[in-house]
Each structure stands twice: as C-alpha cells, then as structure tokens.
C-alpha cells in the first residue's frame, strides 16, 4: 500500500507543478509573438498557489503530517511557503518587461523560475535530510541556468559558472555532512536525529557532521567567509534573477538552517552556537565594510544582502547560548520576521534598480545622480526601500532590526550583548552606503552629458513597486503585521 497523501496539504505544490507544466506547454504551442502568455500563466498560477496556503493558514486546523513525518505542513511551513510564493509573484512582475526586451526564451525563463519556487515551497515542509536536500537543489539548479541568461554577456557567463561551481561544492559539503549524520544516528528524519544525537554532541564525527551541514547552508545564504560567489553572480545575472537569488534562494538557505539547528539538533547548540556567532559577526562586518567601497548599485546591493544575512544570523547565536525556551522561540521568530521584511524591501530595492536603470542607463551609482530631478517617482521609491534596508523608522526595516536586537539582548548573556553591540555599530555603517544611493538620487546634480532614456513604463514593474511599498510602509507603521510572522512560527520551537 502506498503512502496516504493529503491533497489539500499538497495543493500548493500541485498547483505549482500544474502551472509550470502549463507554461512549458504554452511555450511550445504559442507562436513567438504571443509568448507573453507564459508570464500571464505564471502570475495566474502563483495566485492560485497562494489560495490553499492562505486557506490552510487561516483554517487553523493544526499541523498536517505526511510520509511518516517527513513532510509537514505546519504554521512555519505555511508562512514560508506564502513568503516564497509572494516573492516569486513579485519577481515575475519584475521580470516581464526585462525578459521581454531580450525577445527570446521567455517560456523557459518562467518555467525555470517556477521550478525554483517549487523547490523552496517543498523545502519549507521538508523534515528529513533527503527531502531537504532535494528541495534545496531544486531551488539552486534552475538558478544556475537563469544566472547565465544573458548569453552574449561575459559577466553573465561568469556569474553562472561561479554560481554553478560553488553551488555544486556547497551541495557536496552539505551532502557529506548529511551522510555522516545518517551514519551516526541511523535515521534521516529530523525528530529521529534529535533523539538519537542526544549523547553525541561531543563526539568528533558528530561535530564534523554538524559543521559540514552548517557550511553547506552558509554557502547558500552567502555568509562570510563563504560569500565570494555572491557579488560577481549578482552583478552578472539579469537583475530580476539577482533579486530572486538575493531573496528567495537566500531565504531557502535560511529555512534549511532554521530547521536543522532548531529542530534536528538543538542539543548540539554548543557546536553551532559559537560557529554561528562568529559567522554572524563576520558576515555583518565584512559585508558592510565591503559595501562601503562599491560604486555599482547592484554590487552594493549584493554586499548589502550579505550584511543583511549577518543580521539574520544574529538570533541563531542567541539560540545557541540561551537555555530559556521563550528566548529561543523569540530568536527563531526574529529570524523569520527579519526574512519576511527583508524579502519585501530588498525586492523593492531591486525593482527600483530595474526601473531606474532605464533612465540612468547604468548601474554606476554616480550615473544615478540627480534622478529625483527628472524622475521623482522612481527616486521616491528608491528612498523608501533603501532607507528601509537601513532600518530607519517608520519603514518596515526598523522593525526587523528591532526584533533582531531584541532577540540578542533577550539572550541575556554577555556574548549575545556583545553581538548586539557589533550589530548596532554595523547598522550605523550600513546607513552610510544606503544613504550614498539616496544622496546620489536626491542631492547630487545630474551628471554632465547625461541623456535620460525615455522608456515605456512597465505596468507590471509598477505593480511590483506598489506591492512592496505598501508592505514596507504598512508593516513599518503597524508592526503587528510583521510580528505576526514571528509569533506564528515560534510555536514550532516552543512546542518542541
């Protein structure tokens, strides 16, 4: 007898699979001039996918479990699935005019993007090593191709190659660590690993296994010192793909890290706690200091996203040292809240980069000078998203910073307080480079000889900008919106 499937719980995945099949079919059937239907199908499909997620989230029926506990649909999974679908939706909106202007392979683009989204949706539910790994690779695989989308561009080829090589390396490391885990505990199931590893936390093989798994994920979230691929890949890839990588594929890495640390081996916090403390401090500091020197807006956002990952890692370090379950649950919620807010503000920032680059015709920050004088609308969006990334109230980013600081201070030990101080100094440094973009757009005069492009306005890009802006302002002024993410997911840690 085969496994029993809960079709309602699987509805989001099924809807996504149906969508990507439909996109693939449409791409084959449709004549070239009508390929834009693939984009329309993707948007519709993602909208349909969101419905069962919302239904399950609101119906409050509790956790649904399948495949002997390997596939779990709980509040944490649903919140992240919702986030991944929303991010995918916004990325599709950002992509439409960008990809259309290249005039080729539209269908494959959306197919690959949807496949990657499917991977992240699967990951959110995965509660064993194999499913987690499959999900993670399904997220990354399509991105290897998407990063090299601009075939004629050497930088895009470099982006793809670097991303591929390091992606494969990290997968190998992750898998190696996982094989150790399986060998030591005899199970791939996270609950099983947690129970079986109770007495193992000081054996060298187990320590190595945990560290390998951590390093594998650290590549995915581009934490320092495993971040070297990110800036080059981000710069070379098409901007919507970069936006997707900096948000969804990073968030997917974090999902893996969250599940593994909090669910699979919370008992091994003596191993990953200090490791992640160091990684958080390094990631914030190196990311920020390097961002200071960037002159290209996409590279700046690349290093900014590295630094932001450092802020997201801060609560992990707290969970590593704190024995207070409330503080640990708070830390877990803080990371998820941060990811949720970061998703919207970073996508918004990239949407501004796409919108603005049509006028400035360059990614050079100096060429963005005076944007406000001829395109005040785009400059205003830029102001909102970049300041939100900097954490200036009343934009949503401040609340992300607040919960992060709050988790760190709530950790109640000297070490977490020190990390909070490092984070505070970093928040100030970060403001400087975000402000540089704002300064260029608002304070500086238009550079000599600049001829502004007169592009058509893309409706879908405008929609992406408006959606992200509404969230960033709304969640900033009324933080319970963002607090909802943290509070809802915290139950999976609090409940054990």
């Amino acid at each position, binding site marked *: 007898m085969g496994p029993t499937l809960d079709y309602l719980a699987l509805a989001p995945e099924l809807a996504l699979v149906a969508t990507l099949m439909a996109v693939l079919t449409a791409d084959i059937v449709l004549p070239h001039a009508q390929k834009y239907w693939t984009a329309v199908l993707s948007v519709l499909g993602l909208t349909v996918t969101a419905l069962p997620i919302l239904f399950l989230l609101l119906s409050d029926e509790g956790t649904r479990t399948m495949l002997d506990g390997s596939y779990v649909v709980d509040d944490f999974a649903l919140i992240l699935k919702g986030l991944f679908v929303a991010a995918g939706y916004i990325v599709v909106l950002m992509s439409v005019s960008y990809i259309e202007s290249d005039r080729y392979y539209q269908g494959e683009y959306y197919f690959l993007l949807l496949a990657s989204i499917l991977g992240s949706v699967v990951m959110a539910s995965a509660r064993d090593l194999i499913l987690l790994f499959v999900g993670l690779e399904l997220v990354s695989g399509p991105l290897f191709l998407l990063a090299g989308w601009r075939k004629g561009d050497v930088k895009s080829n470099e982006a793809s190659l670097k991303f591929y090589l390091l992606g494969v390396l990290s997968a190998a490391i992750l898998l190696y660590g996982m094989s150790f885990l399986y060998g030591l505990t005899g199970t791939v199931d996270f609950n099983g690993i947690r129970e079986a590893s109770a007495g193992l936390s000081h054996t060298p093989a187990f320590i190595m296994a945990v560290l390998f798994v951590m390093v594998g994920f650290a590549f995915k979230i581009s934490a320092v010192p495993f971040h070297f691929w990110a800036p080059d890949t981000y710069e070379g890839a098409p901007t919507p793909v970069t936006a997707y990588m900096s948000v969804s594929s990073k968030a997917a890495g974090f999902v893996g890290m969250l599940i593994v640390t909090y669910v699979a081996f919370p008992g091994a916090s003596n191993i990953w706690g200090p490791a992640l403390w160091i990684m958080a401090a390094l990631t914030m500091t190196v990311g920020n200091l390097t961002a200071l020197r960037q002159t290209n807006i996409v590279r700046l956002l690349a290093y900014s996203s590295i630094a932001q990952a450092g802020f997201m890692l801060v609560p992990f370090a707290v969970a590593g040292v704190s024995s207070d379950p409330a503080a640990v649950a708070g830390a877990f919620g803080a990371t998820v809240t941060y990811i949720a807010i970061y998703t919207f503000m970073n996508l918004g920032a990239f949407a501004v980069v796409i919108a603005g680059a049509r006028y400035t015709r360059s990614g050079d920050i100096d060429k963005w000078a005076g944007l406000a004088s001829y395109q005040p609308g785009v400059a205003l969006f830029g102001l909102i998203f970049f300041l939100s990334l900097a954490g200036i109230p009343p934009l949503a980013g401040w609340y992300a910073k607040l919960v992060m600081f709050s988790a760190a201070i709530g950790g109640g030990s000297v070490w977490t307080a020190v990390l*909070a101080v490092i984070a505070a100094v970093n928040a100030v440094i970060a403001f400087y480079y975000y402000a540089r973009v704002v300064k260029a757009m608002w304070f500086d005069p238009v550079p000599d000889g600049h001829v502004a492009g007169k592009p058509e306005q893309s409706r879908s890009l405008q929609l992406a900008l408006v959606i992200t802006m509404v969230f960033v302002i709304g969640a900033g002024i009324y933080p319970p919106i963002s607090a909802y993410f943290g509070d809802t997911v915290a139950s999976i840690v609090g409940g054990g």
Partner: protein
Amino acid sequence: MELLDNGTVLSLITFLPLVGALVVGLIPRAQEEAYKWAALITALVVGVLSVVVVFVFDYGDSARFQFGADLSWIESIGSSFHIGVDGISLPMLVLSAVITILAIIYSWDHWEEPRNPKAFLILMLLLETGMNGTFVALDLILFFIFFELVLLPMYFMIGIWGDKTPRTIAMFNLTTETRLYASIKFFLFTLFGSAFMLLSFLGLYFSSGDAGARTFDIPKLIEMAPHLSALPIAGWLFAGMFLGFAVKVPMWPFHTWLPDAHTAAPTVGSVLLAAILLKLGSYGFIRIALPILPEQAMQWAPTIAILAVIGIIYGSLACLAQTDMKRLIAFSSVGHMGFVMLGISTMTEAGINAAIIGMVAHGVITGMLFFVAGSMHHRYHTRDMARLGGNATMMPKMGFILGFIAMASLGLPGLAGFWGEFMALLGAFRPAAGLPVGLFQAAMVTGAVGTILTAGYLLWMLQKVNLGEPNEEWSGHEFHDVDKFEMAAWVPLLLATVAIGVYPKLVLGSTNGAVKELVSTILENLA
C-alpha cells in the same frame, strides 16, 4: 469634552502635521499659494490645539500625565501607543508647535535654492510630527520612533537646501560640498547614539520582566526604578542611553556634528534644529534616563557636570575663534546646552527647572538668532563677520533686533536667557545629597566664568557685525530692512523673550510641580 479624552488632542497635535504633509503633497506643484496655506493652516491648527491644552491643563497636578491614552500597538513585544503630557513636556510641546508656525511664516517668501517650497513644507511638517511625538510619547519604542523620525527631514533639509560651498575634509582627504558632508555627519552621529540607546531600551524591557511584566512603558519603568537600578547591567544601560541623548544635546565631546550641521543648514533648518531638535536629547535625560535609573544617574552626575562645564567653556572659546556668524551661533549652542546639562546633573529641583526653562529660552533666543543670521545672509550673501560691520546703520531694525536678542542670549537679567543660567548655577551650588559638593561648586564657578565669556563673544559679535562703519563694498547698496514676513515670525519670539524674562513663572508654573515630584521620586528610589 470628546477632544480632550483618550489622547485625541495629543494624537491630533502629533499626526495632523503628517496629514498636512500629505495634503501639501497632493496639491499640484504649480499652485504654490494653495499648499503654502495648507501647510500654514495645519501648523496653526496644531498651535491652537496646543494652546487649548495649555488652558485646560491642570497645573495643580502637573506631575500627572494628562490628556493621555494607552492603546495597544505592538502587542507581541509589549509596546503600546502610550501618550500624555505633564508639566515638563508641556512647555516643550508648545515651543515646538509655535516655532513650526513661525518657521512656515518666515519661509513664506524666503526660499533658499533650489527653492521647491512644496518639498520643504512637507519636510517641515514631517519634522513637526517627529518633534511633537517625542514630547508626548510615554513608551520607549514610541519615543524611539519619533526620536528617529526627525532625522530624515533634517537630513534632507541640510542635504538639498544646505550650503553649497566646497569644503575639504582633511581626515578623508576629500573635497565635497558642505551640505553633503554636514548632512551625512549629522545623520551618522545621531544614528550611532540612538542605536545604543535602543539597545539600552531593550535591556530595560527584558530586565523589567523580573520586576513584574516586561514593558516599554515609561511610567511603569519608573515605578520599577529601585529594581532596575540595582541590576548589574544598569551601568551599561545608562551608558547606552547617555550616548543616545548626549549626541543629540550635543554634549562635549560629541558635539562636532553640530557646528557643521547648523552652518550648512538653510535658515529654517537651523532654527528648527537649534530650537527643538537639540532639546530631544536633554528632554530624554529628564524624562527617561534620570527617573528610570536614578542610582546610575547619581553615579554619572559628576561626569555629566564636568562634560557640561567643558562644553560651556569650550563652546564660548570656540565662538571667539569664529569668523562665520552662523558658526558662532552654532558654537554658542554648545555652551548654552552645557548650562542645561549642568542643571540636569545637579539632580535638584532648581537644576532641573533651570534645564527646562533654559531649553525653552534657548529655543526662543537661538532660534531667533538663526533667523536673523539667515536674513542677513540673505541680504549680504556672506556670513563673514569681517565684512558685515555697520549693519545697524544699514538696517536699523535688523540691527536693533540682533542687539536685543544677543543681549538675551548672554543672559541679561530681565530677558529669558537669564533664568536658565542663573538657576543652573544655583543648583550646582547645592547639588542633590550624595553628590560631591566641591566638584559641583567648582563647576558652578567655572560655569560663572563661562557666562562672562558668553557675554564676551556675543558683544564681540555685535561689535563686529552691528557697530562701526559699513564695509566699503556695500556703499551704494540698498538693503531692505526687516520685511513683513520676518516681522510676523520674529515679534512673537521677541515678546516671548521679554515675557519669560520678566515672568519666568510662564514656564516654571508648569514645570515646578512636575519637577518636584520627579526629584522626590528619584530620591525615594535611591533610598
């Protein structure tokens, strides 16, 4: 009355400017008159509401937070929308409401390049929301939000409308426009301080859990003061808050952003910065740092007093070295805020009353000085005092006003500036029990020397700018004297200077009861 219950009036005072900013934003750019009036009417309505509060306020019970509300806001972290005014915040709130009105009137046809009155008015109104909100907030997170909210509008005011002369920064070997350097410096300094302040607020929140429930509520935290100040980390918590507030005041040696920001800012920006923004820091000390961590406040008091006195002397000496009139006034702020901080550090009724009346007086007087400096720059196109001589013959009314307000600034008895300095020194003569009397008396003597230096540089400025014969380069120039907008903006400030000087009870009547209660709470919690 509906308006006065449930925090309605205070919410309106805080958020109407935000609504006004939106309205101004929606009016098309061509209709300049329309959005100017929209902005002015908003500010006037806020002003009227604050006057209503002044008249309905129960001065017999000025330690109680009145017109308040406590609504749930971010439940998951126990932060609520808790607002209210007491006798300490009331004068600050009125000052903020009035100065904003006057700033809009003054701006009416004094737009600095690159003009764009619409954007400037929006920023002014946003700034007012931040300032008023800080003075009514009774929740640490709410306070933090408003405290930060003022940064952005001021950053833009300095960055867009600020001084465009090039300036070389030796430290970075970089030449840039003054406005760009000053705006980012202003922002980074304040952000640095407030980041640590936020960490301290969070520390208080988690520590309050042991004494009841975790809370960001200021009155509740004050009740827990004995517990909180006994914590081993209390010293660090105070240090974090000290950093946040001291940068904002600014106290020596955190003051270096101030001369740059003030000199670079457009006239109205300087006025608002001097009159209100600096007070957010000293207000924070009185409202939050002192009562919540009284023990640490006592330990830090001598340090604060020493830094305050250094600020007084340093500010005055720096003034004597300036050639730029606006920069001189900026440095005078360092000195005057030194007196405010000296008053606070004595932890006495006299000292804290002195601080508040000093804050109001500095707001009125230094705001006025920046107005005059701005108007003179507008006419002469220079702030170099060596070129400005003989202003009183060129523009008699302007000269008179400058002379008058400089007298007020140097603390002439009978004008507003006198009380803050005098009472702060008085407080230092007999500081709170437990503080080193000798040190404070030495501070008093040094502060008194500071008043002489203050008189010195202000008279020196008057001599250079107002007296003597006009510089030859101006012969043949006709300068129009004070115009009607300037008059309308300045007369209320001049009247306030006299009124507070002659009848300080205008401010002290409101503050005294609240300060008495505050000091006795602090002393009780110490025991």
